[in-house]
């Protein structure tokens, strides 16, 4: 046993984040901690890493009780953490990032040659290939993560915590990561994997703790459990599997033809032609940053395309103002809920009103009616089961999942025929995700056409009647539901072709 946490309790105000949590880790094992967002798994790891102090309980590392005041203490005890958001110096090189804080020095100076040598040796020892002289800014996400791992290995960590490590990776990068986890464990390192992706857990973990509402509700050996059982333990009830049935396809509601966008001499979008019919959900699969956001802003009118047309419900709205496009019958659930989706400092009432402020009965002759707005906000909050203390609290006080539910509620309640839906469940827990998915499917059943943009491949595959794959601003494939598996889609998403597959 390399470490043990005994009876840890942590509260934030009235919220109990960890309630009498006890767990332990053995040498050379991969331990997974699974649970929904807010189940307390991140909190318990922050306590272990010295980022938070527990109210009560004890941490024992290598047989000795420890008190970590900050991450340095944890690091000194041999604990390292690969954060969900990478902590890297982008303009600096891979090697410089790895040695920061324990530089290879010669007197007061940095010994550059020896730094490169040390980092090269480290990378070879653990089989993690990198170019020590490359700048982080030029490295893809998968490589950056590898740098994070090497950074921790360089500090001689024996215990490595991974916080949602696959959230930002492409399917191929995820496989490489899982391979890395296995080889690190084989090299004698002990690994804690925090995640809510059960496939990955089943693929690598030796042992699993399931957390729910701040408590450890189950401990299982990977060999004794399966994904279904874990899912039930996590959410407390069986997961709905989506049998979405056949689409009642009707007329084309949204169409783009040869849509191009050139910015600063770069082709951001190349001849995108797609259509969304009534009663179907059309998914756009792709690694973030391949033109999805640009496509959406061209369709919704936030930007004007360089050439090509956008048609909403039979009306050519190319380059028209946002208002006009929305009036033509389009709703938009934006990618980032706090930047474009809402005003975090505004109240829930103000946020539900947005877009309807000129309409009766919410306002007449420029004077808003507080009563109507409150009434409406409370109805949406109730209908969509948004957990909020009052309709007058601020948007940013809601949890991510609830904020997202409110935005979805606002946009779907417009009842428009076309819905553009971007990353609708990014960073929300399984409960909120299910509820958002059910709402989208209901609108589909009512004959709306939905364009779903998501970097979460499972979401695309579960919900879509048809899938387009986008790569470097170009649609590289179109597939009906059920004709593709995630591996092959993943290959297309990173620029491969189906012929590359062996």
């Amino acid at each position: 046993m390399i470490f043990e946490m005994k009876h840890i309790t942590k509260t934030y105000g009235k919220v109990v984040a960890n309630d009498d949590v006890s767990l332990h880790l053995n040498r050379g094992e991969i331990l997974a901690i699974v649970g929904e967002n807010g189940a307390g798994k991140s909190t318990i790891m922050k306590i272990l890493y010295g980022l938070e102090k527990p109210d009560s309980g004890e941490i024992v590392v290598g047989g000795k009780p420890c008190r970590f005041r900050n991450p340095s203490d944890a690091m000194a005890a041999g604990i390292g953490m690969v954060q969900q958001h990478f902590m890297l110096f982008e303009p600096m090189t891979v090697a410089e990032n790895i040695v920061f804080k324990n530089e290879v020095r010669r007197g007061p100076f940095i010994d550059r040659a020896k730094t490169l040598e040390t980092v090269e040796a480290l990378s070879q020892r653990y089989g993690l290939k990198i170019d020590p002289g490359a700048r982080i800014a030029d490295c893809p996400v998968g490589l950056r993560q590898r740098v994070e791992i090497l950074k921790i290995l360089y500090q001689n960590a024996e215990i490595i915590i991974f916080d949602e490590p696959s959230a930002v990776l492409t399917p191929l990068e995820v496989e490489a990561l899982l391979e890395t986890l296995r080889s690190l464990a084989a090299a004698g390192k002990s690994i804690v994997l925090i995640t809510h992706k059960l496939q990955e857990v089943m693929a690598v973990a030796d042992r699993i703790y399931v957390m729910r509402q701040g408590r450890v509700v189950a401990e299982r050996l990977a060999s004794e459990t399966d994904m279904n059982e874990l899912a039930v333990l996590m959410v407390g009830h069986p997961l709905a599997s989506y049998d979405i049935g056949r689409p009642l396809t009707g007329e084309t509601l949204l169409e783009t033809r040869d849509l191009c966008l050139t910015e600063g001499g770069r082709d951001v979008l190349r001849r995108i032609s797609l259509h969304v019919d009534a009663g179907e959900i059309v998914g756009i699969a792709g690694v973030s940053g391949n033109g999805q956001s640009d496509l959406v802003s061209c369709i919704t009118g936030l930007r004007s395309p360089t050439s090509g047309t956008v048609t909403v419900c039979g009306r050519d709205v190319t380059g028209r103002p946002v208002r006009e496009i929305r009036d033509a019958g389009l709703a938009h659930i934006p990618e980032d809920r706090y930047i474009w989706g809402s005003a975090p400092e505004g109240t829930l009432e103000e946020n539900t009103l947005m877009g309807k402020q000129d309409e009766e009965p919410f306002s007449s002759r420029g004077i808003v009616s507080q009563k109507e707005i409150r009434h409406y906000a409370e109805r949406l909050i109730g209908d969509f089961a948004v957990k909020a203390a009052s309709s007058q609290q601020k948007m940013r006080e809601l949890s991510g999942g609830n904020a997202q539910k409110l935005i979805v509620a606002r946009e779907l309640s417009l009842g428009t025929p076309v819905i553009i839906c971007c990353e609708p469940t990014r960073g929300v827990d399984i409960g909120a995700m299910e509820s958002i998915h059910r709402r989208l499917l209901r609108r589909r059943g009512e004959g709306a056409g939905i364009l779903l943009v998501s970097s979460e491949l499972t979401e695309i595959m579960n919900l879509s009647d048809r899938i387009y794959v986008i790569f470097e601003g170009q649609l590289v494939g179109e597939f009906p539901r059920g004709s593709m598996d995630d591996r092959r889609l993943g290959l297309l998403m990173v620029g491969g072709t189906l012929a590359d597959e062996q």
Partner: protein
Amino acid sequence: MMYLAQVINSTLREISPILLVALCAGVCSKVQVFNIALEGTLLTSAFFAFLTHYFLHNIFLSVAVAMAVAMCMSFIMSFFIVRLKGQPMIVGMALNTFARGFTTFLLSVIFNTKGAVNPSDMKGLTKLSLPVIRDIPFVSTVFSSLTAIDYLSFVLAVVMFVIMYRTVIGFRLRALGMSASAASSLGVNVQRYQIAAATLSGCLIGLAGCLLTLGRSTMFIQDISGARGYVALAANNLCKGHPLGAILSSALFGFTTALAQSLQGTAIRQQLLQCIPYISTIAAMAVYNAYAKRKAAH
């Protein structure tokens, strides 16, 4: 020919104070402390350099006091911005306004005047006269009446380059400026580094302050810093905080200031001449930014 040598000479004398302040601005910008209090720091340290020398007649003590005062101002600036999370713009402007009022107040209390103090019997920094150079006609004019601090400023630019780009401490400072969260995730106390870096680099402004009141002539005039703090800020912006680049960008502003001075007495109106350094600041920033934008597009 003689005229050219004089212009170069006054350019050199204009460069050093701007360069010293720009070097401090460079360190501050690298550690992400937006220091707009440079102007007030320069003015205050110039005043105290003069004051110390006036009463104690000790040039070394004066330089030391000026550096200490500048470091105090820089500490207050960085403590308010970094620890107390004050708005950098507000903190900076407050210190600048304070410096103006404070020096003017002391001027009237101690010297009983509102404009300038120009004691005739005061001896400022020694003008170095270098052995070989003083015998070459043109060159001797170029390098005439420069003080040790003028020469030192160029050496310090190189020293700052070595510190920032070759040593462990410089590496850490640059890195934590790029991402404070990454640095603190590795257990570096970012705030402490920021305050220490801003405070220590403040001593460079102290040296610049000495040049203003004890360099060319020994006198204190109200607002003697004459926006050099802001000009240095612009110079630092132009070279992106690189100490060697600061020599070039300070030279640009030093030259325009010298040009404005040398054109005095010609047909061009004085008010227009006085605009030259500031207009060139704006022009340089505009040209530079347009260039950077075009480069980024490619």
